[in-house]
């Protein structure tokens, strides 16, 4: 993944027909993946940074051009695209917040899952846990006998944290193959499927969890 060395040098992300997928296309794919996956995915740090940088740059271009009547159409084109990309960015950040809220204790309990969050999301998760946990404690837990007042264990004597909502990785999902992978094991019985670029599957998420992380498949 290419990192931005110089400011405004975003011409590298050209149209799909010439040099891979543009940043806007990657953002749309990241949003679709996030919407369709039962668990929270790795935050697209570099991509979001580039998108935000490019949004700012386009805003600047619009400010420069809007006084020029000859550039009126170009400004309208820029503004139209900006509204689309901003929608994708808002939707991406929003669906991730929803997942953080839904599985906050699971996320904070698992370092590898917590590492998928951006710095701001991690702060939000900690703040939300304090807020939500405080509310549960004040409204319910503090009224129960000590042995049953835990927010994570049904009873303090229970070994496991049997109250923590976690994503169900055995849910099915639609996915498309982006990179040839040959024979892929798709279930515990050892059944396999040929994963060729462009193939479209309905499959249990657990079977393609790792492939998704590697960018070999995308969710639909």
């Amino acid at each position, binding site marked *: 993944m290419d990192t931005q060395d110089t400011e405004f040098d975003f011409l590298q992300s050209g149209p799909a027909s010439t040099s891979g997928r543009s940043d806007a296309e990657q953002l749309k794919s990241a949003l679709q993946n996030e919407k369709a996956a039962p668990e929270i995915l790795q935050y697209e740090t570099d991509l979001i940074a580039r998108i935000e940088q490019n949004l700012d740059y386009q805003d600047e271009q619009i400010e420069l051009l809007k006084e020029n009547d000859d550039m009126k159409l170009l400004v309208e084109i820029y503004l139209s695209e900006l509204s689309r990309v901003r929608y994708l960015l808002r939707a991406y950040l929003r669906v991730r917040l929803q997942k953080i809220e839904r599985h906050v204790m699971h996320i904070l309990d698992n370092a590898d899952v917590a590492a998928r969050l951006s710095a701001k999301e991690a702060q939000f998760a900690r703040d939300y846990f304090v807020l939500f946990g405080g509310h549960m404690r004040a409204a319910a837990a503090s009224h129960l006998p000590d042995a049953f007042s835990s927010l994570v264990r*049904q009873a303090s004597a229970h070994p496991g*944290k049997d109250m*923590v*909502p*976690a994503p169900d990785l055995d*849910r099915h999902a639609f996915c498309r193959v982006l990179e040839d992978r040959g024979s892929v094991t798709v279930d515990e019985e050892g059944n396999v499927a040929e994963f060729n670029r462009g193939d479209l599957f309905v499959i249990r998420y657990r079977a393609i969890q790792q492939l998704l992380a590697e960018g070999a498949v995308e969710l639909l």
Partner: protein
Amino acid sequence: MGSDYYSVSSLLAEETYVPVRLVHGCTGVGCVIDPSSDRPDLPAGARLDLPLWMVPLMAGRNMLQADLPVFYGNKMRRKMKAGAGCEDLRVRCPHYYTVATQLHAAMQASVTADEDFPAFILNTFRKRYKELLTKAPQVESSLEASQIQTKLSAEESQLFTAAAEASAAYHRWRSSGDSRPLVRVCSVKRKWAESGGEGDENAVANAAG
């Protein structure tokens, strides 16, 4: 268990009563758990109905043995074999499938599992699944939908509602042009699944689980 601790549909399902036999009897709470008893102690072998939420912990410790309620029994299986689509599951057990999976686990724990039970549940869903599939897209009115849904379990109703809503959303989109109203009005009122509380995602997952 943790993944559906807060699941409203699971909590509703676990209020279903199932027949059990107490292995060692019980002291003190006989009147509480058995309304027909007027004595605090119940003898070993006592038979009564308990809510499903009480069963797994006690089955796991061999304190009781759970049996299948009548709506999973041989008579019901014969009726299902004859015509699964016609049966009214809601009147018998609204959370038919959720209760089945949890009860089966409890019966496995107390070694009273019925080997044919999972196949019966799977085949029941297979047969009724086709009915749901063919009916959902054809629903023309909420009244018609309600009539179909009166016979469905909560889990089936969730699927039916989801399919009908997806179909309706698609047809709404098809009938609209490419234009949009100038000012979008965010609708306050939203249609909601009948199973209540939990979102569609969780409800479907928990219905299946």
